């Protein structure tokens, strides 16, 4: 009972901070806009020229990838916020409070995941630019996928932040994790044309399955069929994508809680 209260208040505080920090909401738009409208249009127009016009719509393709990018990068902010809490000392207030460390870690992961999901949802304002028309069911699925995906990533952020304790070091390590996770996924390009070795790396990247699930939710399984991840000769259905993400989340969550409980 007390642990539920603990989880709630940790979650609530992160949301409160997010709400107060409205500047962050504005900057959220800038990168996705650049990627979708500028980068997407640029690549799409050059591809048109090259392939003599196929039915492959690049902007439509990267739109779910960009939502994935927003969720991925915002989720990692949970790790940053934990490191900040340590640096500014607020973490001590939390750690001596009568809440278990497990509850603190869970509250933090849930708070970060909620924020990442909200940020991902905001990306829906780009639908008019993205040449997509997701169904209501698709959007609800997307929200669920984003949350599960974000939760696994915030857990990873907490795991990293439990080991890497200074802002400077975290600022070095986080991009080293994030960019490979992002680029070695089907976020920015279809992966079925990749050379074999690169294709294998993509299949080992858990982020790939989150992105693929989001793409299937936004585009529908039909439209996204040609870009899917194939495992053992099968096209991954969205439900199996989600299973992979959940399993990744469970591993990260367990490790994060364990790391967070370690005392000096």
């Amino acid at each position, binding site marked *: 009972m*007390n642990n539920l*209260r*603990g989880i709630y*208040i940790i979650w609530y*505080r992160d949301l*409160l*901070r997010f709400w*107060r*920090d409205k500047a962050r909401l504005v900057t959220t738009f800038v990168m996705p806009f650049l990627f979708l409208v500028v980068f997407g249009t640029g690549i799409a127009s050059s591809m048109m020229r090259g392939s003599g016009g196929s039915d492959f719509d690049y902007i439509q393709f990267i739109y779910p990838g960009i939502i994935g990018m927003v969720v991925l990068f915002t989720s990692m902010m949970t790790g940053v916020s934990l490191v900040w*809490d340590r640096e*500014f*000392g*607020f973490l*001590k*207030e*939390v*750690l*001596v*409070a*009568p*809440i*278990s460390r497990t509850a603190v870690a869970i509250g933090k992961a849930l708070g970060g995941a909620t924020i990442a999901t909200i940020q991902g949802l905001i990306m829906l304002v780009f639908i008019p630019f993205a040449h997509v028309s997701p169904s209501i069911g698709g959007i609800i699925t997307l929200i669920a996928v984003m949350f599960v995906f974000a939760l696994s990533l915030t857990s990873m952020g907490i795991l990293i932040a439990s080991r890497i304790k200074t802002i400077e070091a975290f600022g070095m390590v986080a991009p080293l994790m994030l960019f490979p996770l992002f680029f070695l996924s089907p976020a920015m390009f279809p992966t079925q044309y990749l050379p074999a070795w690169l294709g294998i790396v993509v299949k080992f990247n858990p982020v790939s399955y989150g992105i693929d699930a989001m793409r299937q939710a936004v585009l529908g399984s039909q439209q996204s069929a040609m870009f899917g991840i194939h495992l053992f000769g099968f096209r991954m259905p969205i439900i199996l994508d989600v299973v992979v993400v959940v399993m990744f989340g469970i591993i990260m969550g367990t490790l994060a809680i364990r790391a967070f409980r370690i*005392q*000096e």
Partner: protein
Amino acid sequence: MTKIIEVEHLVKKFGDLVAVDDISFAVEEGEIFGFLGPNGAGKTTTINILCTLMKPTSGRATLNGFDVIRQQNQVRHSLGLVFQDPSLDIRLTALQNLKFHAFVYNIPGAVAKRRIEEILRMVELWDRRKDEVRNYSGGMRRRLEIARGLLHYPKVLFLDEPTLGLDPQTRNHIWEYMLELRKRENITVFLTTHYMDEATVADRIAIIDYGKIIALDTPDALKSMVGGDIVTLKTENAEAAVVEIHDKYNIEAQYDGAEVFFEIQKGEEFIPTLVNNFKSGLQSISVRRPTLDDVFMKLTGREIREETGGPTVMMKQWAMRQTRGGGGRFR
């Protein structure tokens, strides 16, 4: 009286550094217990262990009857803390910081509301309660942290250098409130400080140096270790004065280049005798009670607050000699 904190052979090492070196002590319920020692003595580390932030290397400690290693949740329920270093969420307002605390410590809504107002008025931040803490000055932040530590009426309140950076008037004001609250709610206070005047509010004081407790007693008993009052005089001929004092009263006075000084029981009764037939051209004379600084110096030969220069450096050497003479009472 029950012992609310019990510490036995506590050791904390950071690599080769022994920050807390086999200390044992007990704190009685309702007492104000002071930890006095210079920077780096191991005060904060001891608190960190008692409040479950760190694990000891060896030894054991209980708080309110609960083991600080095996029963951490119960221990955390029993304590409140004002940390030495900042620990506020500066992105939130004062009110939000306190509400967070009240919720975490399970204070019912209506009670929390009343207490938050009372305590914010006490630390004179009520008018600024809706400001983000990052716009607060250092002193305001400190006051807010003290307010937060008191909010849930903990069984044991740890104050780690609580009034660092506060002006004397605010300090007194806050102490008044804390002492009143302590009586009303029977709170035990564990205080660390390197301000001797702050330590004197304590019922008992442990003097800690290099991770070891070198003395533990009431402030008065500690001061009596110094062996009397300290008499200081300015004279025309200091060397002659020292000799004269020695020949007449068999007292070893010291000269630090500016003043002659010595310690004696009942200094104010001795002064008239001394002044009446003093030969070496007396210019001024003063007597003062020993302070905890003098005690620390007597025990360690060093000052608690590392100031440089001035007569205090000379006092150091003087105190060192005194300790070498007769330190039988000291551990």
